Protein backbone atom coordinates (compact mmCIF):
# COMPACT_ATOMS: atom_id res chain seq x y z
CA UNK A 1 0.00 0.00 0.00
CA UNK A 2 1.79 3.10 -1.16
CA UNK A 3 0.12 6.31 -0.24
CA UNK A 4 0.66 9.09 -2.73
CA UNK A 5 -0.39 12.34 -1.16
CA UNK A 6 -0.73 15.07 -3.71
CA UNK A 7 -2.62 17.43 -1.47
CA UNK A 8 -2.95 18.00 2.19
CA UNK A 9 -5.93 15.87 3.17
CA UNK A 10 -7.00 17.72 6.27
CA UNK A 11 -9.38 16.11 8.69
CA UNK A 12 -11.94 18.78 7.83
CA UNK A 13 -12.36 17.26 4.39
CA UNK A 14 -13.89 14.11 5.73
CA UNK A 15 -17.53 14.49 4.89
CA UNK A 16 -20.33 12.01 5.14
CA UNK A 17 -21.17 11.84 1.47
CA UNK A 18 -21.63 9.01 -0.93
CA UNK A 19 -23.19 5.61 -0.97
CA UNK A 20 -26.15 4.68 1.20
CA UNK A 21 -24.18 1.73 2.58
CA UNK A 22 -21.53 4.10 3.87
CA UNK A 23 -24.13 6.40 5.43
CA UNK A 24 -25.87 3.43 7.00
CA UNK A 25 -22.58 2.26 8.49
CA UNK A 26 -21.77 5.74 9.81
CA UNK A 27 -25.19 5.74 11.45
CA UNK A 28 -24.55 2.31 12.93
CA UNK A 29 -21.21 3.37 14.36
CA UNK A 30 -22.86 6.42 15.92
CA UNK A 31 -25.72 4.33 17.29
CA UNK A 32 -23.42 1.74 18.87
CA UNK A 33 -21.20 4.41 20.41
CA UNK A 34 -24.23 6.29 21.79
CA UNK A 35 -25.71 3.06 23.13
CA UNK A 36 -22.45 2.31 24.89
CA UNK A 37 -22.18 5.82 26.33
CA UNK A 38 -25.74 5.97 27.64
CA UNK A 39 -26.20 2.28 28.42
CA UNK A 40 -26.66 2.75 32.20
CA UNK A 41 -29.54 5.13 31.51
CA UNK A 42 -31.16 2.92 28.89
CA UNK A 43 -31.07 -0.53 30.46
CA UNK A 44 -34.39 -1.78 31.78
CA UNK A 45 -32.91 -4.34 34.21
CA UNK A 46 -29.82 -5.07 36.24
CA UNK A 47 -27.69 -7.11 33.77
CA UNK A 48 -26.80 -9.61 36.48
CA UNK A 49 -30.28 -10.00 37.97
CA UNK A 50 -30.81 -13.76 37.86
CA UNK A 51 -34.32 -15.15 37.45
CA UNK A 52 -33.95 -18.90 37.05
CA UNK A 53 -37.71 -19.50 36.96
CA UNK A 54 -37.89 -17.50 33.75
CA UNK A 55 -34.75 -18.99 32.13
CA UNK A 56 -34.54 -18.99 28.31
CA UNK A 57 -37.94 -17.34 27.92
CA UNK A 58 -38.51 -15.87 24.47
CA UNK A 59 -39.20 -12.23 23.70
CA UNK A 60 -42.05 -10.74 25.71
CA UNK A 61 -43.32 -7.31 26.67
CA UNK A 62 -41.20 -7.37 29.83
CA UNK A 63 -38.08 -8.70 28.09
CA UNK A 64 -38.19 -7.51 24.45
CA UNK A 65 -35.16 -9.62 23.44
CA UNK A 66 -35.75 -12.54 25.78
CA UNK A 67 -33.57 -13.78 28.62
CA UNK A 68 -30.54 -16.06 28.77
CA UNK A 69 -30.01 -19.42 30.47
CA UNK A 70 -29.70 -17.74 33.88
CA UNK A 71 -32.79 -15.61 33.33
CA UNK A 72 -30.81 -12.41 32.76
CA UNK A 73 -32.35 -9.79 30.47
CA UNK A 74 -30.61 -10.02 27.07
CA UNK A 75 -31.31 -6.41 26.06
CA UNK A 76 -29.71 -5.05 29.23
CA UNK A 77 -26.67 -7.25 28.79
CA UNK A 78 -26.32 -6.30 25.11
CA UNK A 79 -26.44 -2.57 25.88
CA UNK A 80 -24.03 -2.73 28.79
CA UNK A 81 -21.91 -5.25 26.88
CA UNK A 82 -21.40 -2.61 24.21
CA UNK A 83 -19.35 -0.67 26.77
CA UNK A 84 -16.80 -3.42 27.47
CA UNK A 85 -16.87 -4.59 23.87
CA UNK A 86 -16.00 -1.10 22.58
CA UNK A 87 -13.74 0.06 25.41
CA UNK A 88 -11.25 -2.79 24.91
CA UNK A 89 -10.71 -2.19 21.17
CA UNK A 90 -10.55 1.55 21.85
CA UNK A 91 -7.66 0.97 24.25
CA UNK A 92 -5.93 -1.27 21.71
CA UNK A 93 -6.34 1.25 18.91
CA UNK A 94 -5.31 4.32 20.95
CA UNK A 95 -2.20 2.67 22.33
CA UNK A 96 -1.12 1.05 19.06
CA UNK A 97 -1.74 4.26 17.09
CA UNK A 98 0.20 6.53 19.44
CA UNK A 99 3.09 4.12 19.90
CA UNK A 100 3.04 3.07 16.24
CA UNK A 101 3.28 6.66 15.02
CA UNK A 102 6.17 7.33 17.42
CA UNK A 103 8.05 4.20 16.36
CA UNK A 104 7.35 4.62 12.64
CA UNK A 105 8.34 8.29 12.61
CA UNK A 106 11.53 7.60 14.54
CA UNK A 107 12.45 4.77 12.16
CA UNK A 108 11.83 6.84 9.04
CA UNK A 109 13.42 10.05 10.31
CA UNK A 110 16.53 8.66 11.93
CA UNK A 111 17.13 5.82 9.47
CA UNK A 112 20.33 3.80 9.96
CA UNK A 113 20.56 1.46 12.91
CA UNK A 114 17.40 2.82 14.60
CA UNK A 115 15.49 1.88 11.48
CA UNK A 116 16.96 -1.61 11.24
CA UNK A 117 16.47 -2.37 14.95
CA UNK A 118 12.85 -1.22 14.77
CA UNK A 119 12.21 -3.12 11.54
CA UNK A 120 13.69 -6.32 13.02
CA UNK A 121 11.53 -6.10 16.13
CA UNK A 122 8.54 -5.42 13.91
CA UNK A 123 9.23 -8.67 12.09
CA UNK A 124 9.45 -10.52 15.39
CA UNK A 125 6.08 -9.17 16.52
CA UNK A 126 4.60 -10.14 13.15
CA UNK A 127 5.57 -13.73 13.87
CA UNK A 128 3.21 -13.72 16.86
CA UNK A 129 -0.39 -13.41 15.76
CA UNK A 130 -2.17 -10.92 18.05
CA UNK A 131 -4.38 -13.48 19.69
CA UNK A 132 -1.48 -15.85 20.39
CA UNK A 133 0.49 -13.05 22.07
CA UNK A 134 -2.57 -12.20 24.13
CA UNK A 135 -3.04 -15.82 25.18
CA UNK A 136 0.63 -16.08 26.10
CA UNK A 137 0.39 -12.99 28.30
CA UNK A 138 -2.92 -14.10 29.82
CA UNK A 139 -1.39 -17.47 30.69
CA UNK A 140 1.21 -15.57 32.73
CA UNK A 141 -0.82 -12.75 34.26
CA UNK A 142 -4.24 -14.34 34.45
CA UNK A 143 -7.57 -13.29 32.98
CA UNK A 144 -8.74 -9.73 32.85
CA UNK A 145 -9.24 -6.93 30.36
CA UNK A 146 -5.93 -5.10 30.75
CA UNK A 147 -3.50 -7.89 29.81
CA UNK A 148 -5.20 -8.75 26.50
CA UNK A 149 -5.59 -5.08 25.58
CA UNK A 150 -1.87 -4.46 26.07
CA UNK A 151 -0.95 -7.66 24.23
CA UNK A 152 -3.16 -6.81 21.26
CA UNK A 153 -1.88 -3.24 21.22
CA UNK A 154 1.67 -4.58 20.94
CA UNK A 155 0.56 -6.99 18.21
CA UNK A 156 -1.17 -4.21 16.23
CA UNK A 157 1.69 -1.75 16.65
CA UNK A 158 3.74 -3.01 13.66
CA UNK A 159 0.84 -2.45 11.26
CA UNK A 160 0.65 1.20 12.29
CA UNK A 161 4.39 1.75 12.52
CA UNK A 162 5.07 0.25 9.11
CA UNK A 163 2.41 2.42 7.49
CA UNK A 164 3.69 5.51 9.34
CA UNK A 165 7.25 4.74 8.30
CA UNK A 166 6.41 4.60 4.60
CA UNK A 167 4.29 7.76 4.86
CA UNK A 168 6.97 9.72 6.71
CA UNK A 169 9.61 8.59 4.21
CA UNK A 170 7.43 9.95 1.40
CA UNK A 171 6.77 13.22 3.23
CA UNK A 172 10.42 13.69 4.11
CA UNK A 173 11.42 13.82 0.48
CA UNK A 174 9.10 16.76 -0.16
CA UNK A 175 10.42 20.31 -0.41
CA UNK A 176 8.53 21.78 2.53
CA UNK A 177 10.51 19.62 4.95
CA UNK A 178 13.83 20.89 3.62
CA UNK A 179 12.45 24.43 3.75
CA UNK A 180 11.69 24.09 7.45
CA UNK A 181 15.05 22.48 8.06
CA UNK A 182 16.83 25.38 6.37
CA UNK A 183 14.87 27.78 8.56
CA UNK A 184 16.27 26.01 11.59
CA UNK A 185 13.17 24.18 12.85
CA UNK A 186 14.05 21.17 14.99
CA UNK A 187 13.28 17.65 13.82
CA UNK A 188 10.72 17.13 16.58
CA UNK A 189 8.97 20.34 15.66
CA UNK A 190 8.81 19.48 11.96
CA UNK A 191 7.53 15.97 12.72
CA UNK A 192 4.90 17.06 15.21
CA UNK A 193 3.67 20.29 13.65
CA UNK A 194 3.96 19.57 9.95
CA UNK A 195 4.41 15.93 9.06
CA UNK A 196 2.01 14.49 11.64
CA UNK A 197 -1.03 16.51 10.48
CA UNK A 198 -0.26 15.46 6.91
CA UNK A 199 -0.15 11.75 7.59
CA UNK A 200 -2.78 11.64 10.37
CA UNK A 201 -5.85 10.92 8.19
CA UNK A 202 -4.26 7.90 6.53
CA UNK A 203 -3.04 6.47 9.84
CA UNK A 204 -6.35 7.14 11.58
CA UNK A 205 -8.25 5.48 8.75
CA UNK A 206 -6.07 2.39 9.21
CA UNK A 207 -6.73 2.54 12.95
CA UNK A 208 -10.47 2.61 12.33
CA UNK A 209 -10.11 -0.63 10.39
CA UNK A 210 -7.92 -2.03 13.17
CA UNK A 211 -10.73 -1.25 15.63
CA UNK A 212 -12.94 -3.87 14.00
CA UNK A 213 -10.20 -6.49 14.10
CA UNK A 214 -9.37 -5.68 17.73
CA UNK A 215 -13.05 -6.06 18.59
CA UNK A 216 -13.12 -9.52 16.98
CA UNK A 217 -9.91 -10.59 18.73
CA UNK A 218 -11.01 -9.38 22.16
CA UNK A 219 -14.45 -10.92 21.75
CA UNK A 220 -12.72 -14.16 20.79
CA UNK A 221 -10.68 -14.06 24.00
CA UNK A 222 -13.84 -13.43 26.02
CA UNK A 223 -15.45 -16.34 24.22
CA UNK A 224 -12.56 -18.54 25.39
CA UNK A 225 -13.21 -17.30 28.92
CA UNK A 226 -9.86 -15.52 28.91
CA UNK A 227 -11.03 -11.93 28.49
CA UNK A 228 -13.34 -10.05 30.79
CA UNK A 229 -14.30 -11.48 34.21
CA UNK A 230 -17.27 -13.85 34.22
CA UNK A 231 -20.05 -11.50 35.35
CA UNK A 232 -19.13 -8.48 33.24
CA UNK A 233 -21.59 -8.13 30.36
CA UNK A 234 -19.61 -8.53 27.12
CA UNK A 235 -20.68 -9.70 23.66
CA UNK A 236 -18.02 -12.38 23.36
CA UNK A 237 -18.79 -13.64 26.83
CA UNK A 238 -22.53 -13.68 26.01
CA UNK A 239 -21.88 -15.97 23.04
CA UNK A 240 -19.90 -18.24 25.37
CA UNK A 241 -22.75 -18.24 27.90
CA UNK A 242 -25.33 -18.78 25.18
CA UNK A 243 -23.60 -21.76 23.59
CA UNK A 244 -25.17 -24.29 25.94
CA UNK A 245 -28.58 -22.73 25.31
CA UNK A 246 -28.02 -23.13 21.55
CA UNK A 247 -27.31 -26.84 22.05
CA UNK A 248 -30.71 -27.12 23.72
CA UNK A 249 -32.45 -25.31 20.89
CA UNK A 250 -32.73 -21.79 22.36
CA UNK A 251 -30.42 -19.85 20.08
CA UNK A 252 -31.63 -16.29 20.71
CA UNK A 253 -29.30 -15.34 23.59
CA UNK A 254 -26.24 -16.35 21.53
CA UNK A 255 -27.38 -15.14 18.11
CA UNK A 256 -28.07 -11.56 19.22
CA UNK A 257 -24.57 -10.77 20.51
CA UNK A 258 -23.14 -12.39 17.34
CA UNK A 259 -25.32 -10.15 15.20
CA UNK A 260 -24.30 -7.06 17.19
CA UNK A 261 -20.63 -7.94 16.80
CA UNK A 262 -20.87 -8.58 13.06
CA UNK A 263 -22.80 -5.35 12.44
CA UNK A 264 -20.39 -3.28 14.53
CA UNK A 265 -17.29 -4.74 12.89
CA UNK A 266 -18.75 -4.37 9.40
CA UNK A 267 -19.75 -0.77 10.14
CA UNK A 268 -16.28 0.16 11.41
CA UNK A 269 -14.63 -1.63 8.48
CA UNK A 270 -16.77 0.08 5.85
CA UNK A 271 -16.26 3.50 7.40
CA UNK A 272 -12.52 2.94 7.80
CA UNK A 273 -12.00 1.50 4.32
CA UNK A 274 -13.87 4.33 2.70
CA UNK A 275 -11.95 6.89 4.67
CA UNK A 276 -8.69 5.20 3.70
CA UNK A 277 -9.75 5.21 0.05
CA UNK A 278 -10.52 8.89 0.16
CA UNK A 279 -7.43 10.13 1.96
CA UNK A 280 -4.87 7.82 0.38
CA UNK A 281 -6.50 7.41 -3.02
CA UNK A 282 -5.87 3.78 -2.40
CA UNK A 283 -6.92 1.18 -4.93
CA UNK A 284 -9.32 -1.34 -3.59
Amino acid at each position, binding site marked *: *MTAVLTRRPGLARIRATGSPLHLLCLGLVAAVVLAALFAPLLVPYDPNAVDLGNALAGPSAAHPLGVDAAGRDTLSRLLLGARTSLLGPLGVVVFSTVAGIAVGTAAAWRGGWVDSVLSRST*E*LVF*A*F*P*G*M*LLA*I*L*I*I*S*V*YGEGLLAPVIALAVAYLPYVS*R*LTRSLVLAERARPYVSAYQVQGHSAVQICLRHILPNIAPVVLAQSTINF*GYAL*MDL*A*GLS*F*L*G*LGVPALTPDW*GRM*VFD*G*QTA*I*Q*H*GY*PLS*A*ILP*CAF*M*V*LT*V*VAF*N*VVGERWADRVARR*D*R
Partner: protein
Amino acid sequence: MSFVRFAVRRVAEMAATLLTASFVVFGAMYLAPGSPASFLLAGRSASPEALAAINAQYHLDDPFLVRYFRWLGGVLQGDFGRSITYRTDVSRLLADRLPVTLLLITMALALVVAVGLFLGRIAAVRGGAADSAVLVTTTFAVGTPSFAAAVLLQGLFAVRLGWFPSSGSGEGLGDMLWHLTLPAIALALYLTGMLARVTRSAMLEALDSEHVTVARSRGVPERQVIRRHVLRNSLGTVLTTGGLIVSTLLVCTILVETAFGIGGIGQLLELSTTTKDFPTVQAVSLIIVALFMAVNLVVDLLLPLVDPRVTLGSRKAAA
Protein backbone atom coordinates in the same frame (compact mmCIF):
# COMPACT_ATOMS: atom_id res chain seq x y z
CA MET B 1 22.02 -12.79 -5.97
CA SER B 2 21.57 -16.37 -6.91
CA PHE B 3 18.50 -18.26 -5.83
CA VAL B 4 20.50 -20.60 -3.60
CA ARG B 5 22.18 -17.76 -1.73
CA PHE B 6 18.80 -16.08 -1.34
CA ALA B 7 17.27 -19.31 -0.02
CA VAL B 8 20.12 -19.87 2.43
CA ARG B 9 19.84 -16.30 3.70
CA ARG B 10 16.08 -16.57 4.18
CA VAL B 11 16.43 -19.86 6.07
CA ALA B 12 19.10 -18.30 8.31
CA GLU B 13 16.88 -15.29 8.94
CA MET B 14 13.98 -17.53 9.80
CA ALA B 15 16.14 -19.54 12.21
CA ALA B 16 17.23 -16.32 13.91
CA THR B 17 13.66 -15.03 14.27
CA LEU B 18 12.51 -18.42 15.50
CA LEU B 19 15.30 -18.44 18.09
CA THR B 20 14.22 -15.01 19.34
CA ALA B 21 10.61 -16.14 19.36
CA SER B 22 11.51 -19.20 21.43
CA PHE B 23 13.30 -16.90 23.86
CA VAL B 24 10.18 -14.74 24.15
CA VAL B 25 7.96 -17.80 24.64
CA PHE B 26 10.24 -19.27 27.29
CA GLY B 27 11.10 -15.97 28.95
CA ALA B 28 7.44 -14.93 29.34
CA MET B 29 7.11 -17.39 32.21
CA TYR B 30 9.81 -15.59 34.16
CA LEU B 31 8.05 -12.26 33.89
CA ALA B 32 5.24 -13.75 35.94
CA PRO B 33 4.77 -12.34 39.41
CA GLY B 34 6.05 -14.63 42.15
CA SER B 35 8.60 -17.41 41.93
CA PRO B 36 8.42 -19.94 39.07
CA ALA B 37 7.68 -22.70 41.56
CA SER B 38 4.64 -20.94 43.00
CA PHE B 39 3.63 -20.14 39.44
CA LEU B 40 3.86 -23.80 38.48
CA LEU B 41 1.80 -24.71 41.52
CA ALA B 42 -0.77 -22.13 40.39
CA GLY B 43 -1.84 -21.11 43.87
CA ARG B 44 -2.01 -24.61 45.31
CA SER B 45 -0.13 -24.89 48.57
CA ALA B 46 2.64 -27.46 48.66
CA SER B 47 4.84 -29.07 51.28
CA PRO B 48 8.55 -28.14 51.25
CA GLU B 49 9.30 -31.62 49.85
CA ALA B 50 6.88 -31.13 46.98
CA LEU B 51 8.38 -27.72 46.35
CA ALA B 52 11.87 -29.20 46.28
CA ALA B 53 10.64 -31.91 43.91
CA ILE B 54 9.22 -29.30 41.57
CA ASN B 55 12.42 -27.28 41.75
CA ALA B 56 14.37 -30.39 40.86
CA GLN B 57 12.00 -31.54 38.11
CA TYR B 58 12.01 -28.19 36.34
CA HIS B 59 15.65 -27.39 37.29
CA LEU B 60 14.50 -24.15 38.84
CA ASP B 61 17.68 -23.73 40.85
CA ASP B 62 19.75 -23.26 37.70
CA PRO B 63 20.36 -19.81 36.19
CA PHE B 64 17.82 -18.62 33.64
CA LEU B 65 20.01 -19.02 30.55
CA VAL B 66 21.02 -22.55 31.52
CA ARG B 67 17.34 -23.47 31.82
CA TYR B 68 16.54 -21.78 28.54
CA PHE B 69 19.21 -23.67 26.64
CA ARG B 70 18.25 -26.96 28.31
CA TRP B 71 14.62 -26.37 27.24
CA LEU B 72 15.71 -25.34 23.73
CA GLY B 73 17.94 -28.42 23.44
CA GLY B 74 14.98 -30.58 24.43
CA VAL B 75 12.68 -28.83 21.96
CA LEU B 76 15.13 -29.42 19.13
CA GLN B 77 14.98 -33.14 19.97
CA GLY B 78 11.20 -33.07 20.16
CA ASP B 79 11.06 -33.00 23.96
CA PHE B 80 8.82 -30.19 25.21
CA GLY B 81 8.90 -31.16 28.88
CA ARG B 82 6.06 -32.56 30.95
CA SER B 83 2.55 -31.16 31.09
CA ILE B 84 1.54 -30.08 34.59
CA THR B 85 -2.17 -30.83 34.27
CA TYR B 86 -2.06 -33.93 32.07
CA ARG B 87 1.04 -35.42 33.77
CA THR B 88 2.37 -36.78 30.48
CA ASP B 89 4.98 -35.60 28.04
CA VAL B 90 3.85 -32.57 26.09
CA SER B 91 5.21 -34.14 22.90
CA ARG B 92 2.79 -37.04 23.45
CA LEU B 93 -0.15 -34.64 23.82
CA LEU B 94 0.91 -32.86 20.67
CA ALA B 95 1.27 -36.09 18.71
CA ASP B 96 -2.26 -37.07 19.78
CA ARG B 97 -3.82 -33.76 18.90
CA LEU B 98 -1.88 -32.33 15.98
CA PRO B 99 -3.43 -34.59 13.27
CA VAL B 100 -7.00 -33.36 13.92
CA THR B 101 -5.90 -29.74 13.81
CA LEU B 102 -3.90 -30.27 10.64
CA LEU B 103 -6.84 -32.00 8.97
CA LEU B 104 -9.19 -29.18 10.02
CA ILE B 105 -6.79 -26.51 8.79
CA THR B 106 -6.23 -28.33 5.50
CA MET B 107 -9.98 -28.59 4.91
CA ALA B 108 -10.43 -24.90 5.72
CA LEU B 109 -7.49 -23.96 3.51
CA ALA B 110 -8.95 -25.91 0.59
CA LEU B 111 -12.25 -24.08 1.05
CA VAL B 112 -10.54 -20.69 1.31
CA VAL B 113 -8.49 -21.21 -1.85
CA ALA B 114 -11.29 -22.73 -3.93
CA VAL B 115 -14.11 -20.39 -2.95
CA GLY B 116 -11.96 -17.28 -2.41
CA LEU B 117 -10.27 -17.45 -5.81
CA PHE B 118 -13.58 -18.28 -7.50
CA LEU B 119 -15.44 -15.35 -5.95
CA GLY B 120 -12.59 -12.94 -6.59
CA ARG B 121 -12.37 -14.00 -10.20
CA ILE B 122 -16.12 -13.74 -10.78
CA ALA B 123 -16.21 -10.28 -9.20
CA ALA B 124 -13.31 -8.96 -11.24
CA VAL B 125 -14.25 -10.50 -14.59
CA ARG B 126 -18.03 -10.18 -14.56
CA GLY B 127 -18.31 -6.87 -12.74
CA GLY B 128 -21.73 -5.30 -12.29
CA ALA B 129 -24.21 -7.19 -10.13
CA ALA B 130 -21.85 -10.11 -9.54
CA ASP B 131 -19.21 -7.70 -8.31
CA SER B 132 -21.62 -5.96 -5.93
CA ALA B 133 -22.90 -9.27 -4.62
CA VAL B 134 -19.36 -10.49 -3.93
CA LEU B 135 -18.43 -7.20 -2.28
CA VAL B 136 -21.43 -7.26 0.06
CA THR B 137 -20.93 -10.95 0.91
CA THR B 138 -17.24 -10.54 1.60
CA THR B 139 -17.85 -7.41 3.68
CA PHE B 140 -19.93 -9.53 6.03
CA ALA B 141 -17.54 -12.47 5.81
CA VAL B 142 -14.56 -10.41 6.97
CA GLY B 143 -16.68 -8.88 9.73
CA THR B 144 -17.73 -12.20 11.25
CA PRO B 145 -15.51 -13.52 14.03
CA SER B 146 -14.82 -17.22 13.50
CA PHE B 147 -16.30 -18.21 16.85
CA ALA B 148 -19.54 -16.38 16.02
CA ALA B 149 -19.66 -18.23 12.70
CA ALA B 150 -19.00 -21.48 14.56
CA VAL B 151 -21.80 -20.91 17.07
CA LEU B 152 -24.27 -19.82 14.39
CA LEU B 153 -23.48 -22.78 12.09
CA GLN B 154 -23.74 -25.11 15.05
CA GLY B 155 -27.13 -23.70 16.02
CA LEU B 156 -28.53 -23.92 12.51
CA PHE B 157 -27.05 -27.00 10.86
CA ALA B 158 -26.24 -29.18 13.85
CA VAL B 159 -28.98 -28.44 16.39
CA ARG B 160 -31.92 -27.16 14.32
CA LEU B 161 -31.52 -29.18 11.14
CA GLY B 162 -29.42 -32.04 12.53
CA TRP B 163 -27.42 -32.44 9.32
CA PHE B 164 -24.06 -32.48 11.05
CA PRO B 165 -22.82 -33.51 14.50
CA SER B 166 -22.61 -30.57 16.88
CA SER B 167 -19.35 -31.49 18.57
CA GLY B 168 -16.42 -33.89 18.67
CA SER B 169 -14.06 -34.95 15.95
CA GLY B 170 -15.21 -38.49 15.13
CA GLU B 171 -13.40 -41.78 14.48
CA GLY B 172 -11.91 -42.82 11.16
CA LEU B 173 -11.31 -40.57 8.19
CA GLY B 174 -14.83 -40.43 6.72
CA ASP B 175 -16.43 -39.74 10.07
CA MET B 176 -13.79 -37.13 10.86
CA LEU B 177 -14.42 -35.33 7.58
CA TRP B 178 -18.12 -35.28 8.41
CA HIS B 179 -17.48 -33.97 11.93
CA LEU B 180 -15.06 -31.33 10.71
CA THR B 181 -17.19 -29.93 7.87
CA LEU B 182 -18.96 -27.25 9.93
CA PRO B 183 -15.79 -26.27 11.84
CA ALA B 184 -13.90 -25.97 8.55
CA ILE B 185 -16.59 -23.69 7.10
CA ALA B 186 -16.54 -21.52 10.25
CA LEU B 187 -12.75 -21.35 10.08
CA ALA B 188 -12.71 -20.56 6.37
CA LEU B 189 -15.39 -17.86 6.30
CA TYR B 190 -13.30 -14.82 7.23
CA LEU B 191 -10.32 -15.80 5.10
CA THR B 192 -12.46 -16.65 2.08
CA GLY B 193 -13.78 -13.10 2.17
CA MET B 194 -10.29 -11.70 2.52
CA LEU B 195 -8.83 -13.81 -0.29
CA ALA B 196 -11.74 -12.98 -2.59
CA ARG B 197 -11.07 -9.27 -2.04
CA VAL B 198 -7.33 -9.61 -2.59
CA THR B 199 -7.88 -11.67 -5.75
CA ARG B 200 -10.46 -9.22 -7.02
CA SER B 201 -8.27 -6.15 -6.60
CA ALA B 202 -5.17 -7.91 -7.97
CA MET B 203 -7.12 -9.05 -11.05
CA LEU B 204 -8.67 -5.62 -11.56
CA GLU B 205 -5.19 -4.14 -11.49
CA ALA B 206 -3.98 -6.68 -14.03
CA LEU B 207 -7.06 -6.12 -16.22
CA ASP B 208 -6.19 -2.43 -16.33
CA SER B 209 -2.67 -2.99 -17.59
CA GLU B 210 -1.53 -2.37 -21.13
CA HIS B 211 -0.48 -5.89 -21.97
CA VAL B 212 -4.08 -7.03 -21.49
CA THR B 213 -5.31 -4.36 -23.90
CA VAL B 214 -2.65 -5.43 -26.38
CA ALA B 215 -3.57 -9.09 -26.03
CA ARG B 216 -7.25 -8.27 -26.58
CA SER B 217 -6.56 -6.04 -29.56
CA ARG B 218 -4.57 -8.83 -31.13
CA GLY B 219 -7.63 -11.03 -30.91
CA VAL B 220 -6.55 -13.38 -28.14
CA PRO B 221 -9.71 -15.10 -26.88
CA GLU B 222 -11.02 -13.55 -23.66
CA ARG B 223 -10.79 -16.83 -21.71
CA GLN B 224 -7.15 -17.08 -22.57
CA VAL B 225 -6.53 -13.41 -21.71
CA ILE B 226 -8.06 -13.98 -18.28
CA ARG B 227 -6.20 -17.19 -17.64
CA ARG B 228 -2.79 -16.43 -19.05
CA HIS B 229 -2.47 -12.69 -18.66
CA VAL B 230 -4.71 -11.66 -15.78
CA LEU B 231 -4.88 -14.61 -13.40
CA ARG B 232 -1.23 -15.48 -13.94
CA ASN B 233 -0.20 -11.91 -13.18
CA SER B 234 -2.21 -11.59 -10.00
CA LEU B 235 -0.92 -14.89 -8.61
CA GLY B 236 2.06 -13.21 -6.94
CA THR B 237 -0.11 -10.84 -4.92
CA VAL B 238 -2.39 -13.67 -3.91
CA LEU B 239 0.58 -15.78 -2.86
CA THR B 240 1.93 -13.10 -0.52
CA THR B 241 -1.21 -13.49 1.61
CA GLY B 242 -0.28 -17.15 2.20
CA GLY B 243 1.52 -16.51 5.48
CA LEU B 244 -1.31 -14.36 6.80
CA ILE B 245 -3.88 -16.98 5.79
CA VAL B 246 -2.09 -19.80 7.58
CA SER B 247 -1.38 -17.78 10.72
CA THR B 248 -5.02 -16.70 10.89
CA LEU B 249 -6.12 -20.32 10.43
CA LEU B 250 -3.80 -21.42 13.24
CA VAL B 251 -5.11 -18.77 15.61
CA CYS B 252 -8.79 -19.08 14.76
CA THR B 253 -8.61 -22.83 15.12
CA ILE B 254 -8.26 -22.18 18.88
CA LEU B 255 -11.72 -20.59 18.86
CA VAL B 256 -13.35 -23.02 16.46
CA GLU B 257 -12.01 -26.12 18.19
CA THR B 258 -13.25 -24.79 21.52
CA ALA B 259 -16.69 -23.99 20.08
CA PHE B 260 -17.08 -27.46 18.54
CA GLY B 261 -15.28 -29.38 21.28
CA ILE B 262 -12.65 -30.76 18.91
CA GLY B 263 -9.60 -32.17 20.67
CA GLY B 264 -6.89 -30.48 18.61
CA ILE B 265 -3.95 -28.32 19.63
CA GLY B 266 -6.13 -25.20 19.60
CA GLN B 267 -8.36 -26.58 22.31
CA LEU B 268 -5.21 -27.81 24.09
CA LEU B 269 -3.86 -24.25 24.13
CA GLU B 270 -7.14 -22.91 25.51
CA LEU B 271 -7.31 -25.58 28.23
CA SER B 272 -3.67 -25.25 29.21
CA THR B 273 -3.97 -21.45 29.40
CA THR B 274 -6.93 -21.66 31.78
CA THR B 275 -5.12 -24.22 33.93
CA LYS B 276 -1.78 -22.36 33.70
CA ASP B 277 -0.07 -25.44 32.28
CA PHE B 278 2.90 -23.47 31.07
CA PRO B 279 5.04 -26.16 29.38
CA THR B 280 2.06 -26.96 27.15
CA VAL B 281 1.33 -23.29 26.41
CA GLN B 282 4.99 -22.81 25.46
CA ALA B 283 5.01 -25.83 23.17
CA VAL B 284 1.78 -24.99 21.32
CA SER B 285 2.73 -21.31 20.96
CA LEU B 286 6.11 -22.24 19.57
CA ILE B 287 4.57 -24.69 17.10
CA ILE B 288 2.09 -22.08 15.87
CA VAL B 289 4.86 -19.50 15.42
CA ALA B 290 7.11 -22.05 13.70
CA LEU B 291 4.37 -23.19 11.30
CA PHE B 292 3.59 -19.58 10.45
CA MET B 293 7.24 -18.81 9.75
CA ALA B 294 7.68 -21.97 7.69
CA VAL B 295 4.76 -20.99 5.46
CA ASN B 296 6.16 -17.48 5.07
CA LEU B 297 9.49 -18.98 4.07
CA VAL B 298 7.87 -21.22 1.47
CA VAL B 299 5.96 -18.24 0.09
CA ASP B 300 9.15 -16.19 -0.13
CA LEU B 301 10.93 -18.97 -1.95
CA LEU B 302 8.02 -19.65 -4.31
CA LEU B 303 7.42 -16.02 -5.19
CA PRO B 304 10.39 -15.54 -7.53
CA LEU B 305 9.44 -18.78 -9.29
CA VAL B 306 5.84 -17.70 -9.81
CA ASP B 307 6.60 -14.12 -10.71
CA PRO B 308 10.04 -13.66 -12.30
CA ARG B 309 9.72 -9.87 -12.10
CA VAL B 310 10.12 -10.06 -8.32
CA THR B 311 13.78 -9.47 -7.63
CA LEU B 312 15.05 -11.83 -4.99
CA GLY B 313 14.62 -10.55 -1.47
CA SER B 314 12.61 -7.46 -2.37
CA ARG B 315 9.26 -8.98 -1.63
CA LYS B 316 6.70 -6.27 -1.37
CA ALA B 317 5.18 -6.24 2.07
CA ALA B 318 1.68 -7.65 1.98
CA ALA B 319 -0.36 -4.84 3.40
